[in-house]
């Protein structure tokens, strides 16, 4: 099969048809599904019904999509407070799968799926992968964790549903991951972006040139990453890097994904309705304005989420994508409203540190932020691993690098932080989400 034909096959993937639904038809479908999901949640979920009652709101009062703004929000704490099964809208006999999200503090949260929910999940993952130009004949390595985390199984069934060959590698054992990619001629990989960076480094140590592998696409998600990181990944390998978005509370990976235009992530709006709200007041914000992403599941059976506060900061991008999809796009998620660090009264997001570090040529994003408190004052240290590209055997040049990093960080953050150049491979590599911040502040 020649390449032109291959790409036209991908574009014509019948699974992608809903991506191009005419707008009026899509809005009608959304309203119909919104009314159904609100009615279902009201009937089956006590917490939701009591909140509706408090507002004197009945499901029948949702008459247009704009009425969604009348509905109460759902927060992550609601999932914790009702742990384990309090928000289920289906009896356990209809629930065929449970997933658990670790959560950084306190109790985990549980999410449930009926058979239909799993089919929807697979279908949106197929649409993600098809949108990335993948199809039957591709060999896709899934290097997300398999198990309670939604990443592994979500990507797995999506890739299988696409008709691709799946290598269910899960996480860990970088050497074996690289061997599989090489020996099987893997053409696409799905994992966290930081894990892929780790694989790039490890491959170099093993003498494997990523650029000589047939790997041509990477579908990266489960943590925020930046365009500079994309450029770095793409320069170190031959892949086209795609950003995929999702969260367990909504379904898992597959809520939205970039298409080959790489101009934001299309949200699979026939199943997930996006809104952007002011993270403090909860007021809806117009397209193009940055705020907190709020999602409503339109078709979920086992565990509908109404106006779920994702804590992810994004925006709805105005205008249509050149790919022709009618689905709205959200901007890439660079930060979460709860990642914010307050250092000596200044708000700092880890993504700002990344931006500053990447401004300095040759700095790979292996870094860590360590917070301490000395004599009541917050101290922030940014530890940056010295890479072969950065290292020279002259002290003066290293000092110069240190100074350039210092300058870039001071400029971006607006406060003085200390920088430590540390030995390569000493910052712990995550197999899942990167742990960027170590907070050792004690009162």
């Amino acid at each position: 099969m020649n390449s032109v034909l291959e790409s036209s096959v991908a574009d014509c993937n019948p699974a992608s048809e809903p991506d191009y639904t005419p707008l009026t038809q899509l809005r009608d479908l959304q309203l119909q599904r919104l009314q159904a999901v609100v009615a279902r949640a009201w009937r089956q979920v006590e917490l939701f019904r009591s909140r509706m009652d408090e507002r004197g709101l009945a499901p029948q009062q949702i008459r247009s999509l704009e009425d969604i703004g009348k509905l109460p929000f759902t927060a992550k704490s609601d999932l914790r407070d009702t742990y384990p099964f309090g928000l289920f809208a289906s009896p356990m006999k209809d629930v065929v799968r449970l997933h658990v999200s670790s959560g950084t503090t306190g109790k985990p949260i549980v999410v449930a799926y009926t058979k239909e929910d799993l089919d929807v999940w697979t279908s949106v993952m197929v649409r993600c992968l098809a949108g990335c130009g993948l199809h039957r004949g591709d060999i896709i390595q899934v290097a997300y964790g398999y198990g309670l985390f939604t990443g592994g199984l979500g990507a797995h069934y999506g890739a299988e549903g696409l008709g691709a060959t799946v290598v269910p590698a899960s996480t860990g054992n970088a050497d074996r991951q690289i061997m599989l990619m090489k020996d099987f001629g893997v053409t696409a990989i799905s994992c966290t972006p930081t894990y892929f960076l780790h694989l790039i480094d490890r491959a170099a140590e093993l003498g494997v040139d990523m650029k000589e592998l047939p790997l041509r696409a990477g579908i990266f998600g489960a943590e925020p990453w930046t365009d500079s990181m994309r450029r770095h990944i793409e320069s170190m390998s031959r892949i086209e890097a795609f950003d995929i978005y999702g969260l367990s509370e909504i379904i898992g990976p597959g809520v939205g994904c970039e298409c080959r235009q790489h101009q934001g992530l299309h949200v699979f709006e026939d199943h997930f309705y996006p809104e952007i709200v002011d993270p403090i007041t909860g007021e809806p914000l117009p397209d193009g304005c940055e705020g907190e992403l709020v999602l409503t599941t339109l078709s979920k059976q086992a565990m509908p989420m109404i106006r779920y506060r994702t804590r992810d900061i994004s925006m709805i991008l105005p205008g249509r994508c050149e790919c022709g999809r009618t689905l709205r796009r959200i901007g890439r998620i660079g930060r979460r409203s709860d990642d914010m660090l307050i250092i000596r009264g200044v708000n700092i997001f880890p993504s700002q540190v990344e931006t500053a570090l990447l401004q300095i040529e040759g700095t790979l994003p292996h870094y860590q932020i360590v917070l301490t408190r000395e004599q009541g004052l917050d101290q922030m240290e940014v530890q940056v691993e010295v890479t072969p590209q950065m290292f020279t055997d002259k002290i003066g040049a290293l000092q110069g690098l240190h100074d350039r990093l210092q300058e870039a960080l001071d400029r971006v953050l607006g406060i003085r932080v200390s920088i430590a150049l540390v030995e390569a491979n000493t910052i712990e590599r995550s197999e899942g989400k990167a742990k960027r911040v170590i907070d050792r502040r004690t009162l």
Partner: protein
Amino acid sequence: MKVHQISLFVENKPGHIAAPARLLAQEGVDIRALYLADTQQYGILRIIVSDWEKAARTLEAHGFVVKVTEVLAILVTDRPGGLADVLGTLDGTGINIEYMYAFSDVRGDEAILIFRFADPDAAIARLQAAGIKLMASKELLKQ
């Protein structure tokens, strides 16, 4: 005429030089000369070893960031003014010494100094023209 030197980035913390030293020992690589340039936070460990390729390979395989640089081994008469004579030949040439240190051995009445020049080729030409003796790797590393 150039000699390969291995430079390693090390944090200025207890035990951080032991790990590479142990690795080289396991591989049977002998450290013949060593020079540590340090700041409060980190340092650069520069070594000349019996087998630089093996040393670089071993250290890299264990995740160390390694730089191989070319330095010159210059024989300097071991008497007052020996070093000044060598340096004198560079006066006015614009040839810049990045750093220098002494090799552990002394050959007869001659000491061996290791020089890192910004432009080693220009330095070789100038030093040889002035009759200064340089040592090749093979000769330098002979036990």
